[in-house]
């Protein structure tokens, strides 16, 4: 890429700035009809982009937009792209901002150097390369913006999805819903252990009714949680094992022998009550609910 083409690009951008801007805005507005875009905002963005582009194309290399000369252009595109991602634009609608500049810009290039076909070709090619890169950059930022949203939501889900509930004095339950991965196990383990310390619970029930599949990795994560709780001095019961999961566990050869497992949370709760020396009995007829609930049993 020679300096001539860059000078041509910057020159045309500078000389016909107002014309290019007007045409470009017209194209953009017709393309973005479905979305309500603030016209003054769009005009401001477009004007700033054109002037920054002219400076950058005049000083920097049009083939490499990652250099320092392009920093301002990149920052502007990032802002626009992020704002559009938030407003719900599609990636192509976002990239449209850059790509729609081609038509008016190329027309002026052709017009300016119509006497020299070679020169028009070379300058157009250089400008295409430059605008394509800028367009791809915009799409990339748009994508990143979306991914950030996904990551944030994942984090929020992670925090929401691991409640530790107290079933009774000294008995905690941890209903797990969704797939268990390493990051989630860590959060689950930490919140469970912290609650054990806070409440002084001696039994924790981990209910996996909401866990869709249990593979060796999930089983290992579960066993880790159980082992950590045991080190703290609390016993763990795993409940909510569905028939298919029981089969999978056996087929995979996962050793769950050290852990007490129960089919339902109710069964696990009954065991936990018994271990705490509590029993549940039916209230006698005619008496109020005061007689119901758990009563401390004599047997230990």
């Amino acid at each position, binding site marked *: 890429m020679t300096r001539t083409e860059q000078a041509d690009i910057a020159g045309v951008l500078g000389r016909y700035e107002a014309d290019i801007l007007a045409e470009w805005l017209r194209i953009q507005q017709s393309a973005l009809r479905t979305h309500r875009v603030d016209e003054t905002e769009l005009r401001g963005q477009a004007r700033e982009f054109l002037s920054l582009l002219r400076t950058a194309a005049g000083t920097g290399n049009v083939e490499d937009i990652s250099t320092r000369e392009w920093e301002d252009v990149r920052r502007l595109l990032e802002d626009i792209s992020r704002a559009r991602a938030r407003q719900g634009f599609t990636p192509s609608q976002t990239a449209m901002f850059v790509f729609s500049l081609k038509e008016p810009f190329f027309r002026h290039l052709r017009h300016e150097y119509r006497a020299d076909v070679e020169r028009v070709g070379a300058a157009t090619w250089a400008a295409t390369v430059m605008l394509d890169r800028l367009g791809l950059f915009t799409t990339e930022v748009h994508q990143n913006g979306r991914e950030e949203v996904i990551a944030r939501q994942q984090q929020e889900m992670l925090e929401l999805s691991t409640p530790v509930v107290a079933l009774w004095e000294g008995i905690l339950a941890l209903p797990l819903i969704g797939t268990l991965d390493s990051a989630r196990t*860590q959060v689950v*383990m*930490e919140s469970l*252990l*912290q609650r*054990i*310390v806070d409440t*002084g*619970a*001696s039994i924790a029930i981990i209910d996996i009714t909401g866990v869709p599949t249990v593979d060796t990795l999930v089983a290992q994560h579960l066993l*880790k949680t159980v*082992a*950590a*709780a*045991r*080190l*703290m*001095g*609390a016993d763990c019961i795993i409940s909510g094992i569905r028939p298919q999961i029981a089969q999978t566990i056996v087929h995979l050869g996962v050793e769950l022998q050290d852990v007490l497992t129960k089919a339902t949370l109710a069964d696990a709760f009954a065991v936990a009550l018994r271990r705490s020396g509590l029993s549940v009995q039916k209230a006698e007829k005619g008496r109020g609910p005061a007689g119901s609930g758990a009563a401390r049993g004599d047997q*230990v």
Partner: protein
Amino acid sequence: MERIPILKMGDSLLVTIQVDMHDRLAMTLQEDLTTRIVQHRARGVLIDISSLEVVDSFMGRMLANIAAMSRVLDAQTVVVGMRPAVAITLVELGLSLHGVRTALNVEKGMQLIGHDRREDDTGAEREA
């Protein structure tokens, strides 16, 4: 020489570890503890590690050793007061201290020892 104090509570011994362990200290503790178990005919050993923020593999092995030695002398070892972060680290290291009993605090540890003894006395089957 630096020593870790061993307190007698009823027929149990209470060891509170507050400093970082090193080989010499661990050896001394094992020696003192076994002597005291025999001397007092202790039936339980409580090791309180609630003030430890870091437990490494050496510490893990030492706890397991103490538990094994006490078992030979017919005393139950209960490790009490482990912090959540320490428990997670030990599990990640693959040291789940098999054969060592645990409790949330000293009080519960004492209950555990008392409970086991009553079961022993009545001749009931003890859980493995």
